């Protein structure tokens, strides 16, 4: 009886078919209803603006009127390719993004390892809160806090002087940017790394010890390779967030700290050359596309 009832839902007494039964009979309808709003958002807002960006990049502006000239050409890209200053800016941005990613990976791994595999449940919760807490504060506030620390007369130099060391003038340099970026994006590296580490079964660690591997050997041979997709997933965040940033270079960077984002910003605001800004913006998009392709090959998306 019960089996029959489940297997073939029938309206009682000739009434309307129950609402849920419609979805049961037409599974595609449920998918359609669930997916339409996010897909619409994705296609209209996200995808369309990306296409628009790409199209705009192939237009130019009239040098006298600064009006956009809708004629297909590659002037913007030629300019980026030919002027060494843009090579420097792109190189600096990519290099710093890579450096920040590497720093965060090195810092996050032991922390996430402790969180996932050593700490008690209570400590784990506390550490989780500690990692996420900075994200509650405004990005600007956190960058300004670092200015107060790295400033010439800031907390860092004050501390160094009080123990008799010479001051480290790293405020408003690329070093300051490296420190601040590494700090700001660290949670985005810790969380996926933690998630990946927690999913490494304890029995694999035991099996490794059982086969004669000491703790470090086990971490190197078993835990690290299995957690790598998580680290790569985290690196997508740290790398792309650094790549697209323009506020930190503006606030803690110095004269030689211009990022792609800053050039984009000034071309939109000051120079009013939106096509050139669009052309510049395609560079991080292209870099990220390559990066994501490599990440996908390393299995990063299985860890998300």
């Amino acid at each position, binding site marked *: 009886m019960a089996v029959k009832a489940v297997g073939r839902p029938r309206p009682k007494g000739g009434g309307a078919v129950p609402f849920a039964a419609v979805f049961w009979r037409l599974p595609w309808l449920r998918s359609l209803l669930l997916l339409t709003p996010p897909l619409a958002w994705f296609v209209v807002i996200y995808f369309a603006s990306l296409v628009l960006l790409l199209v705009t990049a192939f237009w130019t502006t009239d040098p006298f009127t600064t009006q956009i000239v809708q004629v297909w050409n590659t002037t913007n890209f030629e300019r980026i390719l030919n002027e060494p200053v843009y090579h420097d800016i792109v190189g600096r941005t990519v290099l710093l993004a890579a450096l920040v990613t590497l720093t965060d990976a090195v810092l996050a791994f032991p922390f996430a390892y402790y969180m996932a595999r050593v700490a008690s449940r209570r400590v784990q919760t506390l550490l989780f809160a500690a990692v996420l807490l900075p994200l509650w504060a405004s990005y600007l506030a956190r960058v300004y806090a670092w200015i107060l620390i790295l400033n010439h007369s800031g907390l860092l130099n004050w501390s160094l002087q009080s123990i008799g060391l010479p001051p480290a003038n790293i405020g408003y340099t690329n070093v300051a940017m490296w420190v601040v970026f590494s700090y700001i994006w660290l949670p985005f590296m810790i969380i996926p790394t933690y998630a990946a580490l927690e999913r490494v*079964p304890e*029995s*694999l660690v*035991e*099996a*490794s*010890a*059982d*086969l*004669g*591997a*000491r703790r470090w*050997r086990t971490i190197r*041979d*078993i835990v690290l*390779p*299995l957690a790598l997709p998580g680290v790569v997933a985290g690196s997508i965040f740290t790398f792309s967030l650094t790549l697209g940033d323009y506020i930190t270079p503006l606030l803690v960077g110095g004269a030689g700290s211009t990022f792609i984002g800053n050039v984009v910003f000034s071309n939109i605001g000051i120079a009013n050359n939106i096509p050139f800004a669009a052309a510049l913006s395609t560079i991080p998009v292209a870099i990220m596309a390559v990066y994501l392709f490599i990440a996908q090959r390393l299995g990063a998306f299985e860890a998300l």
Partner: protein
Amino acid sequence: MTEAVTPKTALRLQGVRKSYGQVVAVAGVDLTVEEGEFFTLLGPSGSGKTTLLRLIAGFERPDAGRIELAGRDVTSTPPYLRDTNTVFQDYALFPHMSVADNIGYGLRVKGVAKPAREKRVQRALEMVRLAGLGHRRPNQLSGGQRQRVALARAVVNEPEVLLLDEPLGALDLKLRQEMQIELKQIQKDVGITFVYVTHDQEEALTMSDRLAVMSNGQIEQIGVPVDVYERPATEFVAGFIGISNVITRNGVRLVVRPEKIRMLAEGEDPGPGMTVEPGHVEQVIYVGMTTRYLVHLERGEHLVAVRQNMDALGDAQKFEGRPVRLAWSKEHTFVLEKGR
């Protein structure tokens, strides 16, 4: 194998205890396993058999007691320095390594040179009949094949004692029975001491040289399969191995194994020296090869009798509800220790 020597002790446990908070997992175990023996720890879940295995492997530290491997005290030795290897229940194969790399990992860690290592891995693959699959990843193998890889990965290191934690638990019945025979054969061939954990009594009886029946963290009985089955020391053992057939007569608890009980035909003479008790059949349970009869005795209590299904089918059911006389010989009954 040059000359017959007295068997050496591979593993010795003395007064080993382990508790987790209030829960006592292993409550004082003494145990000696000889070299080359297939020794089984049999018990229901929660009896402490897996904890005991983990204590031997070194994954847990005992609260008290002493663990010796080949005469050497290893109580405080970490697992990576113990001459034991484990076949895990979930196999615990490294998913990012090929089958060959999995099997060779222990040798690699110990610094065995590549040519020698590859040769031994190849031999191990052949032993478990997986030659040619060395390049595959564990997730490209079936459950039975993974089980073999786990076995090969442990055996290839030639440990003093090989520990197996319900290694066949995840396989279906048919495959499990095949693997039981194969596992026993491999153990004979390599001559490594096996300590095997299972909750399957049939598996324990078929494979073991000796077995220990565990309950509540303690060993109830240790012996060869025939002894444990035919002469259970406690009511728990009698009930856990085989069908619990315990009756009290004249203040004594007795066990009669079901296949030792004869159901007499009407007017049949049981012969001399047989105990005969009347009762009636409450239930007839057909189990393929045999049929079980649950008999309510007139003096109270139940006994199960088993008969081979040699006769025509369908005749067994007619016994249900009928009066019947059961007969068994005195030498087939065993008195249980009191107070257990």
